[in-house]
């Protein structure tokens, strides 16, 4: 087969998403039809997902010097596409009460997903930056999408301003590294004195600045402060997207950078990353402790989860990449479920914000399946056995222990101990008696059933993968091998 065609074939999934974005623009110019737009978005994403699965036997394809489509890429493309589909499903009922144009939301969603996919496949600073901005810029719009709500607009601005600051750090860091190495490709980032030499202070400064930007996107301590405000203000499906797709893509990129770029092979750098991880898991969990707003709570908890995940970067053990793949998959699945319930129960257009924990009191007696799903998600986030969250937590612990990073192991354990308190608190509230004056959970008609089915499927998957995780582990192991080689 011709080399160009081969490359196009490898890039087929993002191309399909891009095509559906263009198709959406054209459609909107002609006619405004929400169902049609929704169907096109979901159709395009599903086609991309099918293409991703079909590409598995293909083997690594280098698509221009900018991208690499290997099994690692495909794995995370799969995760991103599934998560985006779930977000679309949650957005439909959430926005149904929104008294303005709803169609553009799906364009933003698909574009952002495209950016995420680009980011995962990036092996060059150029594609990294384009991917990151393509992921972020539509997100500003999505966070502020329900702009008539003050909180949503405010959150959009906060996110945009602080993201801009982070992007500046990123560009400056890249410039410094380019100055030092004369290259923008990850694998060419070699210390001046050769592979084994120490990176000089300016190179470290460059990588440090990039780290600031990327950890901002991952909302790791001390660059986490925006997280609760944005999660709270954003529409629930957007918060879902932020917590899952955005985090997955950026972390996958960070891992690829650390595995491929020789200058990151620096003990002091890794120690500092470990400190960030430790701080994130402790502070994230401590902040979530007495939080009454579920969106904020899940935001804080995502800080902690990314902290757990970051330990694998420090460990650098052979198991690390597999652990990241497993943990991210389980974290995304669980967060989707938890946010899905929040977004189904809280439709702000029928009254004031319903993400307060009191609105979930006694949910079990109104919507038993939804409440049980939420309970399962809480258990999974807490890492209780028989849920897939336990499998992920187990991987993290075994990786840190195998690398002898006992301080990080201790941090994960202490953090999980603190986390248990607020996860179980949410869970208990679901089953408490409803106070007489409580507002009924608002569940709108359109797309509601489909979104609920997604939540149920996620709950079933959480239990199933917790009992029989072998397929997920096998997939993750292959993803790990291709990146490691």
């Amino acid at each position, binding site marked *: 087969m011709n080399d160009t065609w081969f490359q196009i074939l490898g890039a087929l999934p993002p191309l399909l998403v891009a095509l559906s974005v263009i198709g959406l623009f054209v459609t909107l110019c002609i006619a405004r039809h929400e169902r049609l737009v929704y169907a096109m978005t979901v159709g395009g994403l599903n086609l991309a997902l099918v293409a991703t699965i079909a590409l598995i036997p293909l083997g690594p394809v280098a698509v221009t010097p900018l991208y690499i489509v290997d099994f690692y890429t495909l794995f995370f493309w799969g995760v991103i596409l599934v998560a985006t589909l779930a977000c679309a499903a949650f957005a439909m009922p959430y926005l149904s009460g929104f008294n303005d144009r709803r169609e553009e939301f799906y364009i933003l969603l698909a574009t952002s997903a495209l950016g995420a996919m680009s980011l995962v496949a990036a092996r060059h600073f150029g594609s990294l930056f384009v991917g990151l901005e393509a992921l972020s810029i539509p997100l500003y719009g999505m966070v502020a999408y329900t702009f008539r709500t003050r909180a949503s607009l405010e959150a959009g601005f906060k996110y945009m301003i602080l993201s801009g600051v982070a992007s500046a750090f990123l560009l400056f860091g890249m410039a410094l590294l380019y100055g030092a190495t004369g290259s923008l490709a990850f694998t060419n980032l070699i210390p001046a004195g050769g592979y084994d030499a120490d990176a000089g*202070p300016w190179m*470290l400064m460059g990588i*440090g*600045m990039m780290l600031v930007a990327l950890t901002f996107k991952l909302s790791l301590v*001390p660059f986490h*402060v925006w997280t609760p405000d944005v999660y709270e203000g954003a529409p629930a499906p957007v918060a879902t997207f932020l917590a899952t797709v955005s985090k997955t893509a950026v972390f996958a990129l960070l891992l690829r950078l650390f595995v491929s770029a020789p200058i990151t092979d620096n003990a002091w750098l890794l120690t500092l990353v470990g400190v960030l991880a430790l701080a994130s898991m402790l502070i994230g969990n401590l*902040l979530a*402790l007495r939080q009454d707003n579920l969106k904020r709570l899940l935001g804080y908890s995502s800080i902690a989860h990314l902290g757990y995940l970051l330990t694998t970067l420090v460990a650098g053990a052979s198991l690390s990449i597999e652990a990241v793949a497993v943990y991210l998959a389980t974290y995304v699945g669980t967060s989707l479920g938890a946010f899905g319930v929040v977004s189904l129960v809280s439709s702000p257009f029928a009254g004031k914000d319903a993400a307060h924990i009191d609105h979930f009191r006694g949910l079990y007696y109104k919507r038993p399946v939804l409440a049980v799903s939420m309970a399962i998600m809480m258990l999974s986030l807490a890492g209780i056995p028989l849920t897939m969250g336990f499998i992920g937590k187990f991987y993290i612990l075994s990786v840190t222990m195998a690398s002898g990073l006992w301080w990080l192991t201790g941090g994960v354990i202490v953090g999980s101990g603190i986390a248990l308190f607020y996860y179980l608190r949410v869970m208990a509230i679901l089953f408490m008696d409803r106070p007489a004056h409580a507002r009924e959970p608002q569940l709108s008609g359109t797309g509601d059933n489909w979104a609920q089915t997604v939540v149920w499927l996620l709950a079933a998957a959480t239990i199933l993968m917790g009992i029989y995780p072998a397929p997920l582990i096998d997939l993750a192991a292959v993803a790990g091998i291709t990146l490691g080689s």
Partner: protein
Amino acid sequence: MSLLVFTLIFPLLGAITLSLFPRMSYGAARTIGTASVGLAAFTTALVAIFWSAAGGFPFIQTLWQWIDAGDFQVNFSLYLDGLSLTMLGVITGVGFLIHLFAAWYMVHDLEGKPGMARFFAYMNLFIVAMLLLVLGDNLLLLYLGWEGVGLCSYLLIGYYYETPANAWAAFKAFIITRIGDVFLAIGLFLLYVVFGTLNIQAILHAAPSVLAQGGTLANVAALMVLLGACGKSAQLPLQTWLADAMAGPTPVSALIHAATMVTAGVYLIARTYGLFLMAPAVHELVGIIGVVTLVIAGFAALAQTDIKRAIAYSTMSQIGYMFLALGVGAWQAAIFHLMIHAFFKSLLFLTAGSVIIACHHEQNIFKMGGLRKKLPFDYAMFVIGGAALSALPLVTAGFYSKDAIIWEAVANGHGFLWAFALFGALITSIYTFRLIFVVFHGEAKTEAHAGQGLAHHLPLAVLAVLSTFIGAMIALPLDDVLPHDMAEASHWVELFFEILAALVALAGVAIAAVLFLGSRKTVDTVVESHQGQRAWQLFHGGLGFDTLYDRVFVRPFRATARAHEKRDWIETIVNIVPALTRGANTGLAAGQSGRVRAYAMIMFAGAAVLLALLMFG
């Protein structure tokens, strides 16, 4: 032979079916519950035939590997030899008869209330657990069954849980046997550490070479096993739960608290006899515990007014005889008495149940009286059972099994124990015939309606036949499992001692007749005197062990708990952790001001620190 596992599967299926459909009709629940155990008994018969046809060698059926963790491997394996086959026969055979009787009894006891399926589900589950206990080829599987029977016992004692007293009795039984279980678990850990395996046969095989005769290790291990056995078998010092356990329905008392579960301790000691041979001091202690328990329980049985409690104390006393047999090295005699006791004690309990139903749930013997005419069948059954319990010579099964133990005690040179055992035999026949005379003779004090139907008559009749010398003709295949009883003495000496024991039993009957037939003036005068009152109170309460434990353990424990309820320094220390976390939460949350300026400042500060550390660190 691989049929063996089906003895477990049938009752298990029964228990599962009954649990899944708790609202099924009386008829369906009775049929399923009884048939499952019946099938198990039938399977046992087949297994017994095949097993002896194949030469009677030990047979191991490995179902699957249970645990495989490093060096620690445990199989889910069943082990069949003469001893487990004997237990298997008792559990499924007597168990089936009791289930059959329960099918009659529970209809009258429940009187239309729901709970029939629940009752038979527990009963079937009990059979499963008990079979696991005796068939397990390793101590862990045995322990699984051991805990399983404990659980079922708890559930069935508290079966009528609406009455708080029953629930408390269930708690008491569970907690006190649990104390024994903890010792057994410690024993298991110890044995694993020493032998590196939990396989019973491997441990018995290695014991003589690994343990030093009379060494500390052997003594401690054997003592732990003994304490476990004491808990389950209601022997001193863990005997106090059994009398209260009579709160359960009467078939439960027959099955669990007479025929099977309470004899699990005897089985355990016999099964691990090699361990006790290596620890002579503890072995001696087994016999002493047995003798003390049998005398104490005998005295207590003399002063009971509740028919079931009286029989319960006699169970404790008879298990005391079994412990005595184990203690003097008469291993086979112990198991033989276990089986015979299962026959006649279930007969006594079931008959008592029949009498209780006939008298409209009356359990006080002094409110019965003169039932001989109204309940002739029950009378005959009770006399046969009582005669076996008292070991009346020649015609009863108890004579052959119990007098063998008493004879072995003296023949193996334990004259002191023998004297107590003989004294116990005297008390046994006194309290047994006291029951018979008070309940069935004298003037009638209550209405009574005799039980009807095959499910009522058949189990009693079969057990009655087995309680006579016919039951004693069953030869147990124990020679390859347990050491031969070693008594060596001339035939004439043995005959002399047996006649002596027989005379003692008959003397007991005579004394009971003098005291309790007719006007009972002598007894009343003694009991009504000041000292008599105190003695009666003492005996009636099981010789004060409940009070003793209450004073020594329960009250200090509760006092300590109360004293620390308000100001507990441990809790103060523990409370530091939540206080710290809460403080950290408050401090950190203050940073979440919601102002973008502040957020950007935090970011820049963080970046500055990070970069400075990176460049100059």
